[in-house]
């Protein structure tokens, strides 16, 4: 595979030339590569700590919920370690628990995680020129809503060590929290474990409510999706539809209605 270096203008557009030149000179003198740059591994770790703590508790709730759906603990740890995504995992477990088809599961994940494609595209505009193809492939694994939010709002270019540091603690938090919830969740009092079932939805609320406040279009997308979702779930004619397809249909509907009535202006920042 051949690796085409990013165009030069992407570099000069993202940061002042003086900084770029300074960085090149410094890294050349100390021969330390990107590791000693302002946004190195340790900066990533620090930025990732609050995300990791948040993931720890949310995935704990996720695991307790998922165990109740009949998924074994070991499978849940593998799921969290290999997926690192909340909405996709909740939807996936829902489809699996409902005995859904493999193609239904794949399509559900595709639709629900489609936002990562846009985030990835957005991040390509900010990647340091030293990012190799292999490094891009590694860093891609750690793209979540929160990691995207932190990295895309960081000033300057993103280095590979920074992205690795940023992904580290959230991954540990997400996987560890799942393990704790799956294997120690039963030790909790029944009332507390029942209450934790709402944790993951609470996190979703924390994403959609501020989004709806900021943009009419987001509010419209949520309302349209929820409205169609309610129709598909409760009108008996549609009872043949499984939960996975209901999520896909209502989400695509909501997003299309909003994109049609409230077009996004300017660049597509997620």
């Amino acid at each position, binding site marked *: 595979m051949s690796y*085409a270096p990013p165009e030069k203008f992407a570099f000069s557009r993202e940061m002042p030339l003086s900084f770029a030149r300074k960085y090149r000179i410094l890294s050349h003198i100390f021969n330390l590569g990107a590791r000693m740059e302002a946004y190195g591994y340790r900066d990533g770790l620090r930025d990732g700590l609050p995300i990791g703590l*948040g993931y720890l508790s949310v995935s704990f*709730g996720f695991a307790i919920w998922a165990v109740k759906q009949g998924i074994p603990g070991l*499978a849940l740890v*593998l*799921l969290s370690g290999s*997926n690192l995504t909340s*909405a996709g995992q*909740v939807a*996936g477990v829902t489809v699996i628990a409902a005995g859904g088809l*493999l193609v239904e*599961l*794949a399509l559900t*994940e595709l*639709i629900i*995680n*489609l*936002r*990562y*494609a*846009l985030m*990835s*595209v957005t*991040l*390509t505009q900010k990647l340091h020129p030293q990012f190799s193809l292999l490094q*891009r492939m590694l860093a*891609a694994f750690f793209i979540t*809503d929160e990691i995207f939010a932190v990295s895309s709002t960081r000033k300057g270019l993103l280095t590979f060590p920074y992205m690795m540091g940023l992904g580290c603690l959230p991954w540990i938090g997400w996987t560890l929290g799942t393990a704790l919830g799956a294997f120690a969740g039963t030790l909790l009092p029944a*009332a*507390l474990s029942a*209450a934790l079932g*709402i944790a993951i*939805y*609470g*996190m*979703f*609320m*924390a*994403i*959609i409510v*501020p989004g709806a*406040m900021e943009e009419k279009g*987001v509010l419209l*997308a*949520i309302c349209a*999706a929820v409205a169609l979702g*309610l129709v598909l*779930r409760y009108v008996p004619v549609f009872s043949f539809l499984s939960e996975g397809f209901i*999520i896909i249909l*209502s989400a695509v509907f*909501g*997003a*299309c209605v*909003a*994109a*049609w009535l409230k*077009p*996004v202006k300017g660049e597509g*920042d*997620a």
Partner: protein
Amino acid sequence: MKLYLYLLVMAAVTYLIRMLPLAFFRKKITNPFLLGVLHYMPFAVLGTMTVPAIFTSTGEPVSAMVGTLAALLLGLKRRSLIEVALAATAAAYVTSLILGLL
């Protein structure tokens, strides 16, 4: 065994969606409608996944309702993900304890 096939598919699809654009995309999407759909999609997904499921998430409607209200309130105050998640849980837990006493 079938379960692990499902897990493999989930991991593969999720990873490829993240990896392919980051590794190979070098341009910008310009179609405004497509941009809009991608922009609104996460909110639409989360919306339809949260409502109505959140109201049955604690296995009992009153505590779920109180938890939902707590999440809504803190969401409106733009609190962090972890704060909202924990507040909803705490509100639902306290409510269920109170209901247990009645």
